[in-house]
């Protein structure tokens, strides 16, 4: 038991979170190994985003604990910066910084947190822009890019910190349909490269393709954790079955 625990990159134990009187997360337990790809799905308002936002402390939580690399998350500015170096995040609305160029967006974190020089940071930035296949956009401002390109920049921005794990919070939900596949391709490539990933998404095709583990959440609880073959063909709970029938009916 202790042996297997040591290999978990992320452990969430009894996590509970309240917004005022509203219980957003209740008794969340989840373990993610290094290199594991976890896809989280569930109806809106089920706490998926809140859960992954707790992992890099964008949200505080009232109960339970989270361990990353065996180290417990505490609300201490220095420790938080160290956690955010290890855990990258991609948002639904990209949240690029509109006042600086794409290249500068990518350089900011490495310069400020990893203490890279400007030229080192620029070099890293270009490397990841090439990885997401838009190096020619480096000198543009985010508003000059399409949604799909912006999200790819956001992925590259997170990768520039050289994270050990990536969190994706509905990365394709704000995209026009024709932009989605480009972003998913990048994510598949990332997954095949061995990145530890937790992806909140409704893209079930992507889930089938890359997920090692499916997590289904409803009403702030984890209802089901299963490998994708089992989850999609033989869901164990009524709620996941209902959700799947709704989402896959078209």
């Amino acid at each position, binding site marked *: 038991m202790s042996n297997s625990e040591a290999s978990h990159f992320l452990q969430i134990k009894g996590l509970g979170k309240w917004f005022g009187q509203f219980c957003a997360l209740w008794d969340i337990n989840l373990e993610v190994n290094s290199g594991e790809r976890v896809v989280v799905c569930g109806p809106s308002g089920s706490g998926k985003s809140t859960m992954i936002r707790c992992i890099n402390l964008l949200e505080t939580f009232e109960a339970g604990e989270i361990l990353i690399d065996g180290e417990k998350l505490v609300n201490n*500015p220095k420790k938080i910066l160290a956690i955010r*170096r290890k855990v990258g995040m991609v*948002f639904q*609305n990209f*949240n690029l910084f509109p006042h*600086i160029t794409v290249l500068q967006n990518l350089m900011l974190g490495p310069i400020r*947190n990893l203490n890279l020089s400007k030229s080192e940071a620029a070099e890293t930035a270009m490397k990841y822009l090439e990885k997401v296949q838009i190096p020619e956009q480096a000198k543009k401002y985010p508003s000059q890019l399409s949604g799909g390109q912006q999200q790819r920049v*956001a992925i590259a921005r*997170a990768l520039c910190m050289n994270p050990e794990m990536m969190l994706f919070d509905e990365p394709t939900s704000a995209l026009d349909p024709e932009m989605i596949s480009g972003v998913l391709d990048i994510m598949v490539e990332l997954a095949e490269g061995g990145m530890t990933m937790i992806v909140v998404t409704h893209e079930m095709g992507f889930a089938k393709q890359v997920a090692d583990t499916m997590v289904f959440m409803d009403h702030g609880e984890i209802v089901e954790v299963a490998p994708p073959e089992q989850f999609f063909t033989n869901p164990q709970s009524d709620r996941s079955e209902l959700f799947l029938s709704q989402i896959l009916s078209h």
Partner: protein
Amino acid sequence: MPVNRPPPALEKAKRIKLLDIVVISIVAVVIIAIYYRVEHVLVYRWNWGLVFEYFVRIDEATGDILPNLFLKGVAMTLRLAFWGTIIAAVIGIVMGLCRVSNSLFLKAVSRLYVELIRNIPPVVFIFVFYFFISSQIIPLLGLDNIAYTASPNTIAVLEVLFGPIGLFTNFLAGLICLAVFEGAYITEIVRAGIQSIGKGQWEAARAGGLSRFFVLRDVILPQALKTILPPLASQFIILVKDSSIVSLISVQELTFLTQDVSNTTTQFFESWMLTAALYFMMCFPLAMLFQRFERTGLGIQKH
């Protein structure tokens, strides 16, 4: 090739409409009525020449041309405006950052500052604050000694920057009152600017590994500046005008000295109309300048 379809021709709007003519007529009638009241009912004796003498005077002993009360007043008002703007901006930025800080203490202090000043009439504030700082704080600085110890050159420079050395403590008291007063409004402008930046920007910057200091410096403040600039500019113009309230504590700026002129000459209309024109001449170019900044955006990228 896409076909270029010309837009439908729109009827040209008339330059002057009936309503404009009506409004212009009403204004004209009011002006004529005022003129009539002053000339034929009040029987006011205009004497612009007498008032204009208060711009410059000729030293009888040496024959030099020296600035008289109006010019001295303008100079003093400009000094108040210049230093007041700088100090108020510093106070406003520091307090504005306190308003959005995580520390309950800093939040409480800055909130108290803003609410106290916004909810007390400026005149009352000036009197209360003046008697406190002039009797308690300024003597501690030992500024009076400067006049006795500094070299003549130093004094000449200081006089250009801060006005007559004999009135220095008085100027400083007025300046601090003005800066503290205007700083409260700038605090709120800065706070609103910072809070106008979406939550997503904070989150992306924090998730990207930036400490709070760099989140503010690299991401939030540069964007907030665009929102802050227009109200900040108009606040600076208000500051120039508000500098007239320190005449109440005998700072010898334009309004204070105009009282002298109008009392001495008894030409009230002329003195005050002239002063109104002088204030306008100080504020209007500023307004033009800031409007220009707003258009060019100070080189800040639009998004």
